[in-house]
């Protein structure tokens, strides 16, 4: 009995030792396997990182390229929406009118203003952002030309909020001008009932954008037509530009237009313009 117990004990012991030995060996094998796996994993992580980075860089570059492209497109659009061919030929026709009337001085005066406006527009349209003061300078020159052409049939009232320093606020060039142009072209009725139209342009500073409101009277029949008709080309161009600007500057600027009935019908165009400041 005792012997049996003894044998049993030694067998158990050797079995235990054997199991321990196997476990040790297993551990060593695992160590070798895992040990050799670690550099492999490191290499994999590294490769993954390199690929990921180059992909990200490529995506980043692509985005940058796209932005650049949209910026150059914007320049083109600025140019196109700025120098409205219609306006240019109207100016030339007015000059021709003065020449044929032998009103040389008036023709010269008109021609010089016209060349200055074109000069300013050419300068501004190559830049993505110009000082508000410069943009307004071009706008006022434009308005002067239109007043000359239309024999002062309208008044232009420009108001800028006192909190704005026009030298220190930078906006995309010539985005306000086409809206004023629309206001002038739609706001003046040809029948000349003696009343002077007032076209107003008010500029307020919003939260990270400039809020510009243009108001002009509009003839009743035109207002009705406008509700059926699609938006004018000038407005569509501005809207396209605004969308591009929104994508570049990460903003959500809007343009809206409504006709309000007072003792006459008043068309109010409101635009939010992305801005930069120093």
């Amino acid at each position, binding site marked *: 009995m005792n012997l049996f117990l003894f044998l049993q004990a030694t067998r158990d012991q050797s079995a235990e030792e054997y199991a321990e030995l196997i476990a040790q060996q297993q551990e060593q094998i695992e160590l070798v396997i895992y040990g050799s796996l670690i550099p492999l994993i490191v290499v994999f992580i590294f490769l993954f990182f390199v690929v990921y980075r180059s992909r990200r860089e490529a995506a980043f570059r692509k985005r940058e390229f796209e932005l650049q492209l949209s910026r150059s497109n914007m320049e083109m659009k600025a140019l196109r929406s700025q120098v409205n061919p219609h306006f240019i030929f109207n100016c030339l026709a007015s000059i021709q009118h003065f020449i044929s009337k032998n009103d040389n001085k008036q023709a010269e005066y008109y021609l010089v203003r016209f060349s200055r406006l074109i000069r300013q527009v050419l300068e501004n349209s190559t830049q993505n952002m110009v000082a508000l003061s410069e943009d307004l300078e071009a706008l006022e020159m434009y308005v002067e030309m239109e007043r000359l052409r239309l024999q002062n049939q309208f008044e232009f009232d420009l108001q800028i909020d006192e909190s704005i320093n026009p030298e220190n606020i930078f906006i995309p060039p010539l985005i306000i001008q086409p809206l004023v142009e629309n206001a002038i072209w739609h706001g003046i009725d040809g029948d000349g009932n003696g009343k002077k139209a007032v076209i107003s342009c008010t500029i307020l500073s919003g939260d990270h954008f400039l809020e510009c409101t243009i108001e002009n009277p509009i003839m009743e029949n035109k207002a009705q037509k406008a509700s059926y008709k699609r938006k004018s080309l000038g407005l569509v161009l501005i809207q396209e530009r605004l969308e591009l600007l929104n994508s570049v500057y990460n903003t959500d600027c809007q343009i809206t237009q409504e006709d309000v009935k007072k003792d006459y019908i008043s068309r109010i165009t409101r635009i939010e313009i992305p801005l930069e*400041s120093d």
Partner: protein
Amino acid sequence: MQTIIVEDDHEQQEWLENVLKAEFPNIRIVARVDSVTKAVESLSRNEVDFVIMDVMIKGGTSFDVLEKLGDFDFHIVFTTSFEEYAIRAFRQAAIDYLLKPIDREEFIEAIKRVEQKEADRKQREQYEVLIANYARNPEDQKIAIPDSSSILFVHPKDIIRCVSDNSYTTFYFSDRKPVTISKSIKHCEQILDGLGFYRVHNRVLVNLKHIEKYKRGDGGSILLSDGEEVDISRRRKESFMRAFKEL
């Protein structure tokens, strides 16, 4: 006043002559010339008080004419249409010019000032600056800074920065006391265009060569060689870095 018109466009010659005849009985037009050679010839042969000059003429520029004449003592009214380098050289030399098409009233005003001796005779050095800067000869390039009483001629490399205070701008130099002139910073930026200056802020124009250190930050700031620290506005940071790297 004995006057010569240097202009290669014959319609423009006629326009100038008509306005002069109509408005200024005292002006006697001695010659109308259209090329560098003819201008040099008639200017050295005649006693001339006053010259109207277009920049681009046959055979070169009016600046070539002045260079060839060397010494002269007449008033000049310059006209130009769209020559970028000429306009820059005029600004750098602080010499007025008339843009074409010429405004009749402005033209008459300019002649009146010459006639009534109100226009100060330009200094020899101003013409030298004009000619050198138009030729874009880097060693000779200087700019003229007119303050209330005199004209200062400086090398652009000696200007550290320009700081604006509304319609006044103060120039800070490496070798002399600051000078304040009654010109906007925009005007100064145009004068220094192409000479290695950058508008880091709406109010500050700096010479890129005088930057010692760039400090990171929102827009960041730079330390200039005179120890001044100037902030860079956030909106200009990106293009500033580009300009700085190109240096």
